[in-house]
């Protein structure tokens, strides 16, 4: 057995160890450790991805070599390492790009705690994406909730504390429902490992036994995870949460944490319920409807926002809607589009938060009205903001375009959904274009030459510039050469 198969377990343990070690380091050392951790995890996941591609089969990793039903297991194919590699790169870039604001926003002496929390979030993401045991999934969901709440509340202004408690309340409602769903599944099947659950559920569904309990369990688990990831109508915590957190946290929470829950839900759909049972249960149609409404409502709320950070946060609500709409369309092309959009959003949203923070520094405020001409003072941030906004709108050469194209293509798999999907996509593109272009135009409005005196030079921006450039390059490369990535996702979906 190749060494690579140990990577997920090592990565989880390494993250936990690093977070414990970080608590006794200085802030600077903890930051370096965190960045190194992200790099190591990304490389490890790259190795695992290569292994998965070479063997072409999924790997079940028995912890302590105990076979089921006694042991705990991890499972990974191609999709898990691919997403985790992207997630750890994005997390590293968020920490790098948000450094200036982390230093400003956090109290002295609290910096190391931030990295404790970010390492924990990474470990929870890896565990959620690879675990083969649904109860382990529940435990890591809670670890993820607590540590992401830590990332949020560490900026000690009143509004973030208020936002944290709101975030916690919705998260806990979600995980309570999820737990009840898991207990119901355990009650009717007697299993917690995903393959055994799937087999037992298949038999129960075929025999028609416990139909109501099974349907309740499916709905509870789906709704629980949907609430946690912020699907309409449970997205009201988003603007405060993402908008007032320190920008690095905003990026991590919107780009990674909510996607971690969605990916876990996808694994549960494919590996526990089975696509047959799930798509026949009708829950997928509910996801489609709420996803589609979420897109429109999120975009309209974003349009009405004057505060740019809250606007970007509302746009996140719309993007979550896209992902759920994709899941609702079909188990093949729809989920493929959703997976691509998970990557798109993870690569596009964090740099939007980071560059908005840079721009609001030069513009003296978070409101759009104050941003007139700010693009001339901080060119790199304005350019990053514009390109990422283009990606969110769905302009060709960016990842956002490929996502939207994939959603439209997926809709043709189900004739009844073609028209509503296309209408929602068109409407959302118009709304996205409207609210993002307003900001971009404000950024590039002409200003007096005297104002330009305080322009921030590229070299002064240091690490932010590096992270912004990498984000933009990733976006454009994946947008132009999307086909290999789609093939990779398709292959991974086959192994899920």
């Amino acid at each position, binding site marked *: 057995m190749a060494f690579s198969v140990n990577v997920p377990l090592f990565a989880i343990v390494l993250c936990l160890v690093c977070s414990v070690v970080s608590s006794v380091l200085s802030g600077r050392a903890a930051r370096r450790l965190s960045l190194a951790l992200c790099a190591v995890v990304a490389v490890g996941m790259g190795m695992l991805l290569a292994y998965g591609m070479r063997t072409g089969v999924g790997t079940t990793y028995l912890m302590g070599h105990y076979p089921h039903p006694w042991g705990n297991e991890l499972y990974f194919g191609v999709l898990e390492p691919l997403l985790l590699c992207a997630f750890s790169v994005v997390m590293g870039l968020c920490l790098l790009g948000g450094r200036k604001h982390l230093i400003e926003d956090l109290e002295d002496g609290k910096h190391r705690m931030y990295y404790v929390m970010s390492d924990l979030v990474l470990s929870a993401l890896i565990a959620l994406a690879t675990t083969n045991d649904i*109860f382990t999934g529940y435990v890591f969901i*809670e670890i993820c909730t607590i540590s992401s709440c*830590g990332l949020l509340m560490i900026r000690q202004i009143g509004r973030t504390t*208020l936002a944290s408690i709101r975030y916690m309340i919705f998260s806990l409602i979600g995980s*309570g429902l999820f737990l*009840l769903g898991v207990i119901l599944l355990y009650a009717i099947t007697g299993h917690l490992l995903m393959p055994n659950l799937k087999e037992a559920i298949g038999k129960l569904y075929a025999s028609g036994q416990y139909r109501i309990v099974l349907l309740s369990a499916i709905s509870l688990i789906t709704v629980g995870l949907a609430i946690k990831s912020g699907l309409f109508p449970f997205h009201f915590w988003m603007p405060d949460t993402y908008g007032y957190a320190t920008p690095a946290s905003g990026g991590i929470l919107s780009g990674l944490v909510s996607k971690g829950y969605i990916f876990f839900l996808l694994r549960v759909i494919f590996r526990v319920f089975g696509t047959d049972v799930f798509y026949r249960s009708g829950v997928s149609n509910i996801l489609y409807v709420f996803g589609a409404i979420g897109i429109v409502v999120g975009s309209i709320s974003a349009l009405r926002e004057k*505060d740019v950070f809250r606007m970007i946060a509302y746009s996140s609500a719309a993007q979550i809607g896209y992902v759920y709409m994709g899941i609702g369309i079909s188990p093949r092309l729809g989920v493929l589009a959703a997976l691509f959009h998970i990557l798109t959003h993870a690569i596009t949203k964090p740099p939007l938060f980071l560059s908005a923070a840079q721009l609001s520094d030069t513009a003296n405020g978070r409101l759009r009205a104050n941003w007139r001409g700010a693009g001339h003072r901080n060119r790199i941030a304005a350019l990053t903001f514009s390109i990422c906004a283009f990606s969110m709108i769905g302009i060709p050469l960016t990842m956002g375009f490929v996502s939207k194209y994939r959603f439209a293509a997926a809709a043709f798999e189900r004739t009844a959904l073609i028209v509503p999907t296309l209408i929602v996509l068109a409407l959302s593109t118009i709304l996205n274009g409207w609210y993002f272009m307003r900001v971009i135009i404000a950024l590039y409005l002409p200003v007096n030459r005297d104002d330009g005196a305080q322009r921030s030079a590229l070299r002064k921006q240091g690490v932010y510039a590096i992270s912004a450039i990498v984000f933009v390059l990733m976006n454009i490369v994946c947008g132009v050469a999307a086909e290999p990535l789609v093939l990779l996702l398709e292959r991974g979906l086959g192994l899920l």
Partner: protein
Amino acid sequence: MRELLLRLWDSRIAVAAVILFAVGFVTLLLHRNLLKKIIGLNIMDTAAYLLLTSLGYIENRLSPIIQNGDTDPTRYVNPLPAGLVLTGIVVSVSVTAVMLALTVRLYQRYHSLNLDEIYASAQKEHGV
């Protein structure tokens, strides 16, 4: 009718657990007082653990610790749900601790436990 009542009596613990879960859920979602929200959270979690524990219990069987060298598994109850409940309790204790810490901080800043009042003072303070 009699049959229905008997079936209800057989699953009385599950019914109680679901009612408790609903009470906790509604309190967590709708109550405006933060402390009561936290109590609601705990009721909700406890209800889930009650359901789990009751599933693992089989009447007239022993607790799952080998007694008098008897290794026949049919004489003992299923130990797994108890293990799950213990894990769940740890999770809910830590979540409660985080919620209480947040509540303390909000109270120190806004001198209230009522979420509506806290929102009102936050809006006054930040002017949005």
